């Protein structure tokens, strides 16, 4: 007997906390292997760096170390901004099936990912963003740029 059930439809909802976190970790791993390793190998070859945090505090780091770190931050920021602008997904988001919804331009994608910059007030986002996601279900920067990280699901 035919039940004539309606077809399942695709809906969007804010991406879950777990998926967002997994996507971020995948992106961090990608940044490490794609950018940090080559930058450090080339720029810091022969440069002695302190091997512990305490000795790093005591000794001034060479100029190259700061420049290499700055280059890594710039490339990481561009990674998130360009992938979100042109593909609406970073590698991590692609693997976790998260999509970026909303009207985009380069400024919005740069602002969305300003948490990369380790300067005040941007590093506060490492606290603000997770708390905002846990309370409201989306990032603070999503609200600011009128974009959303979504995932699709099927239902009747």
């Amino acid at each position, binding site marked *: 007997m035919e039940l004539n059930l309606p077809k399942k439809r695709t809906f969007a909802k804010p991406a879950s906390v777990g998926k967002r976190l997994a996507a971020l970790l995948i992106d961090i791993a990608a940044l490490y292997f*794609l*950018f940090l*390793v*080559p*930058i450090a*190998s*080339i*720029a*810091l*070859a*022969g*440069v*002695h760096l*302190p*091997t512990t945090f305490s*000795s790093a505090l*005591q*000794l001034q780091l*060479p*100029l*190259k170390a700061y*420049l*290499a770190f700055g*280059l*890594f931050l*710039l*490339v990481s920021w*561009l*990674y998130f901004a*360009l*992938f979100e602008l*042109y*593909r609406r997904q970073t*590698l991590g988001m*692609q693997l976790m099936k998260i999509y970026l919804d909303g009207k985009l331009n380069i400024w919005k994608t740069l602002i969305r990912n300003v948490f990369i910059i380790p300067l005040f007030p941007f590093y506060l986002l490492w606290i603000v963003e997770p708390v905002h996601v846990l309370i409201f279900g989306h990032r603070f920067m999503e609200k600011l740029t009128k974009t959303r990280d979504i995932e699709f699901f099927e239902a009747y």
Partner: protein
Amino acid sequence: MKEKQKKPSGVLIAAVLIIIAIIGAIIISGIGESSGNVIVIPLHGIIAIDEDSSLLGTAGASSTDIVEQITRAEEDATVKAILLDINSPGGSPVASEEIAHAISQTTKPIVALIRETGTSGAYWAASSADHVIASRMSITGSVGVLGSYLEYADLLSRFNITEQRLVAGKYKDLGNPAKKLSSAEKNLLQQKIDLMQTYFLEEVQNNRNLTEDEVDTISTGVFYLGTEALDLHLIDEIGNEKTAIAYLESAAVLNETVTLKTYPVHKSLIEELAGLTNQIGFSTGRGMASTLLEKKFTITT
């Protein structure tokens, strides 16, 4: 009608960013201080002749590499001194002696900085340096030779496993863990170990100008904290990297500002991945497993 703009692929975006990163890194590598005047040579991990790195493992201190770096520093006109950065429990006696010998042959000032651990073979190497610095809580000393191994002859017999002994030469399979160690064999091995210990003590005594009483004290093989080692004249100063730099900058040594540098170590992808694993856990497991499975009898300082 407007043509639909083709989106660049993820691969293209990643490729562009990698090119930017590499070009930026090349530019940065040419900026700033072009060279240092003090080479830092790390002596980290278990000392062996050659490095052994696998996907799950971790590399130790290769005497081949370290001797090569010392030789290179000796021939490098821009290098005025060497800083040996030690964090090692020791290892192979031959490898330790190679490093110690290379250090004693250098004409440039060499400072040994013992970090958390600098015992046994690592201390042998450190004792050859012109100046030895350790933290007050560094573990050093342990001037002794170790040749213990697990014997599982009884375990095999419990499972009715018999080893067919086919040897030419009475002591050819000396130290075979699959058979019981006789008292004669044990005495023979002990003689070898005692002889190595004699060589080890002689070297340390010559390097550190120790008195006979001090040699007797350290010959027990016990380890010492930095403060205790200072009292026994095993080290020269309590301190850290800053102390080592201050010593090198002093009028008695270089009398100029010290800039540290290292010789680049080119790592393969496997070695990069190996660096991500837990060093202590794997080394402990591998050490126990290799003792049971591999062979025989190895001697370490």
